[in-house]
């Protein structure tokens, strides 16, 4: 955590949540995990204020808590999670490209509110969409629910950990803080709600409560709400899934640049098939057979099986090594080498920085050093075919900005 990162977090918290939350949040980021009273003491704020600020931060998934062995609770605010706020627009845009306006609004509501029940999300999104529609038209809850389910199926949204069921007969006093957990199996299961209704326009007075005072109407709405059928089941945006999506996009576009459109579509298909079956930190995807891939290609793609097999072989043989062959059954088993792909993309990014910052000759030397690991001055000149004086200049320039380093080797 650098000073600049802490400052950035503090600015983000201030902009989104105000001064009090900012003070508490920044304090936690700087000090690591602390219990409630210590936070209040150190920041000089009242216990009440600290509690409210922590509530807001926990609601928005920016602070987590842990019950320590000695019986007190410590709160922690990871700096990296606060920085993710910067990416919210990108997540929302991704949802828009995949699930159009409905997906966009669902993800936006979840990101802005931290945690919400499905019924609340559906109602809110239906209302918002109805606002933008022509007069007289309304958005049906069913359509929104459908999109919600699709987002859950592809893991872009997930259930929040819940408090465990308390049994009446338990004699022990309740713990100071509930340990929240969610079953792996249930994380993406959408509750079986029968949400029937349509979106309401905010400005519209044309429904049954025609003529009543606005405040009264709002109260009536709140009263008629009752306890929603999915009370206690809260949802949040699954940020890691969005990151996985970005990773997949980067891999597909790299293949498109290096090979051709068809190869990249094949890779995209393979990644889509592995979306939920492979964990996001796995080094490679589950093996996929050529037959399965053939069946999963997008509808518009008219290539015959033999051609697909050729493409797969070429992908597996390519020096990029993004795709590997892991067996021969099912027409050939193929995997995507995720870690290798990410390493290659990272290297290409470094090379791009050097190229733009120092020029193509320096970039040549940089790539040369990346391949050969260690080289003497003379070897650099010979391999890169750059005259001695210029090569020296370039190496010293990169050395001064810390892109390359010097190592003394004893002469034998």
């Amino acid at each position, binding site marked *: 955590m650098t000073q600049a990162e802490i400052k950035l977090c503090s600015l983000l918290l201030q902009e989104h949540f105000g001064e009090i939350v900012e003070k508490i949040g920044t304090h936690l980021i700087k000090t690591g995990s602390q219990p409630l009273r210590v936070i209040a003491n150190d920041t000089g704020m009242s216990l009440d204020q600290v509690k409210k600020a922590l509530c807001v931060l926990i609601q928005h998934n920016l602070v987590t808590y842990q019950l320590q062995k000695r019986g007190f609770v410590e709160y922690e605010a990871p700096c990296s999670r606060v920085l993710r706020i910067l990416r919210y627009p990108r997540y929302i845009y991704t949802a828009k490209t995949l699930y159009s306006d409905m997906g966009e609004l669902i993800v936006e509501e979840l990101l802005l509110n931290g945690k919400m029940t499905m019924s609340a999300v559906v109602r809110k999104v239906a209302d918002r969409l109805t606002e933008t529609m022509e007069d007289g038209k309304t958005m049906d809850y069913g359509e929104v629910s459908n999109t919600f389910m699709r987002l859950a199926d592809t893991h872009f949204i997930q259930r929040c950990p819940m408090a465990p069921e308390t049994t009446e007969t338990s004699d022990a006093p309740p713990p100071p803080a509930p340990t929240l957990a969610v079953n792996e199996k249930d994380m993406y299961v959408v509750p079986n709600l029968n949400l029937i209704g349509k979106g309401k326009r905010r400005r519209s007075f044309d429904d049954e409560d025609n003529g009543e005072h606005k405040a009264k109407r709002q109260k009536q709405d709140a009263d008629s709400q009752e306890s929603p059928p999915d009370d206690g089941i809260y949802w949040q945006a699954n940020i890691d899934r969005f990151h996985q999506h970005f990773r997949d996009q980067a891999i597909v576009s790299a293949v498109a640049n290096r090979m051709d459109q068809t190869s990249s579509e094949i890779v995209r298909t393979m990644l889509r098939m592995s979306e939920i079956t492979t964990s996001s930190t796995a080094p490679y995807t589950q093996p996929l057979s050529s037959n399965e891939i053939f069946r999963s290609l997008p509808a518009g793609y008219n290539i015959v099986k033999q051609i697909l097999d050729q493409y797969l072989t*070429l992908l597996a043989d390519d020096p990029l090594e993004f795709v590997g062959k892991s067996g021969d059954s099912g027409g050939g088993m193929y995997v995507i080498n995720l870690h290798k792909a990410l390493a290659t993309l990272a290297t290409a990014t470094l090379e791009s920085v050097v190229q733009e910052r120092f020029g*193509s000759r320096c970039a040549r030397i940089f790539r040369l050093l990346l*391949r050969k690991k260690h080289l003497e001055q003379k070897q650099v000149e010979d*391999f890169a075919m*750059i005259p001695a004086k210029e090569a020296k200049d370039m190496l010293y320039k990169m050395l001064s900005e810390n892109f390359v380093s010097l190592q003394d080797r004893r002469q034998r």
Partner: protein
Amino acid sequence: RIKESQNAGKMKGSDNQEKLVYQIIEDAANKGIWSRDIRYKSNLPLTEINKILKNLESKKLIKAVKSVAASKKKVYMLYNLQPDRSVTGGAWYSDQDFESEFVEVLNQQCCKFLQTKAEAARDSKQNPMIQRNSSFASSHEVWKYICELGISKVELSMEDIETILNTLIYDGKVEMTIIAAKEGTVGSVDGHMKLYRAVNPIIQPTGLIRTPCGLCPVFDDCHEGGEISPSNCIYMVEWLEF
């Protein structure tokens, strides 16, 4: 035996010290040997060495060649030997000067040749396997093309072309694969053949570099509240006004 007696004939009239120095120089073959190294090996004083060297040179038994590694260094070798490339610099040096323009031209020509070949393969719309195979060119093919272009005054070997192709690999413009080739296949060396292909970069120039900060010369001095800060950055203002 015969060689020795021939040499003995040449050395008639020289003393043992000269014979020793000659032997040392002969052992250095076509890489030559520096006078200081001769001194170490023979344990003779410098003045003696210099006298002997002058003597041998005048008898046209040895010659001095300027080394491209250090322009002030002279290495001595037997008179009728062709100096090794490491001494003269080979095709890339003319009189101790590195011909960077020549290298640059060759670099561009090889690149263009491979790019044209790759494009032709893509446009042929054959099945992907054929497309890929026809986008490759062996180092022999490239060498032939360059020779036929006639842009080189000196004769270039296939190895010379391979060093040029390697710089294209370090430029990120070309990739190489090695395949097994039957002995006797044109362009194969020791049962292998090197194939080269023009490639595109796998990413666009990265985000950081497309902002003013990525190229800023005072990046390290910039912080909020300082003399140089993002709020008063003129590059930032210009960039945001697109």
